[in-house]
C-alpha cells in the first residue's frame, strides 16, 4: 500500500517526502536503532518515537518505506532537513505506538 494512502486513511501528518509515495509492504515498531537495523525489512513502515536525525540514516540504509512518529512527536529540525535532502518519508501520528501499529497492521492486511 502506498504511503500517501496510509497517511490519508490514518490521518497522518506528512512532514517530508510527500511526493514519494513509497510502497509499504510491512511494518516494524521500535525505538532501539540496532534492533531496527537488524530486524526491519526493506519496504517496512517504521513506527517509533525517536525524533533525532539518526533515524534518517537507518531508514535510508534499510530502504524503509516511511518513518511514522507516534504521540504527535515532531521530528527535530535537523532530522527534517536531512529527510528532505535524502528523500525519506516522515509522517506524524497523534496515536501511541501500540494503537498505530495495530491500525497499520490491519490496513496492510486488508489491502493484500
Amino acid at each position, binding site marked *: 500500500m502506498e504511503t500517501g494512502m496510509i497517511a490519508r486513511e490514518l490521518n497522518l501528518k506528512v512532514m517530508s517526502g510527500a511526493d514519494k509515495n513509497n510502497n509499504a509492504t510491512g511494518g516494524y515498531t521500535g525505538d*532501539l*536503532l540496532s534492533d531496527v537495523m537488524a530486524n526491519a525489512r*526493506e519496504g517496512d513502515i517504521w513506527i517509533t518515537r525517536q525524533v533525532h536525525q*539518526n533515524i534518517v*540514516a537507518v531508514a535510508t540504509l534499510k530502504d524503509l518505506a516511511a518513518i511514522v512518529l507516534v504521540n504527535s512527536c515532531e521530528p527535530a529540525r535537523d532530522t527534517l532537513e536531512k529527510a528532505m535532502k535524502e528523500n525519506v518519508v516522515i509522517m506524524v501520528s497523534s496515536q501511541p505506538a501500540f494503537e498505530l501499529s495495530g491500525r497499520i497492521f490491519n490496513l496492510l492486511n486488508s489491502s493484500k
Partner: protein
Amino acid sequence: MRKASSAVWKKLKPEVNASENILVKNSFDVDGGNFDTAGTVSTRIKSILKEQGLPSDVVRRSAIVSYEAEINVVSYAKRGVINLTVTPAAVEIAVNDEGPGIPDIEKAMQQGYSTASQQIREMGFGAGMGLYNIKSYSDRFDISSEVDKGTFLKMIILIQKP
C-alpha cells in the same frame, strides 16, 4: 596496565585474496562523538555497493555491519577509519579506531551487554546489540582490542558462496 585481547569467529573459511581483482578500495574517516554525521559513511558504502550491482542481500548485510561499526566509533572512540574493499568474491569492511578499547571482548559480544552512557541510550543506541549484529550478519568477523589504544574489526561478507 594495558591488556590486549582478540577473538575470531569463523563461520566460513575464505579470506579476501589479495591477488584477486580489487573492484573498490575506499577509506573513510569517522569522527568520534559526532552523532550529527553518524551513519554517513555507511550510507556512502551502501551506495557504492549498490553501484557495483552486488546482490541485495550482500548490500543489506554490509550496510548493517558497517552501520553498527560506525556507531561504535561515534559512541566510544576519538576517531576511526573505515576501509572498504570489494573483490568479485567478497566485501571486506575493516575498522580501526583510537579509543578506550574493549577490556573483555567475550563479554562485549554478548547480546544486551553495553557500557553506553545514558545520553547514548536515550537516542536508541547502546542496547548491546552492535557487535552481536556484526557477528550475525558477517560471514567472517575478526576483532582485536587494546585497552586505552583502540579496537580493530574486520568483517567479510561473501558475494559468491563457496
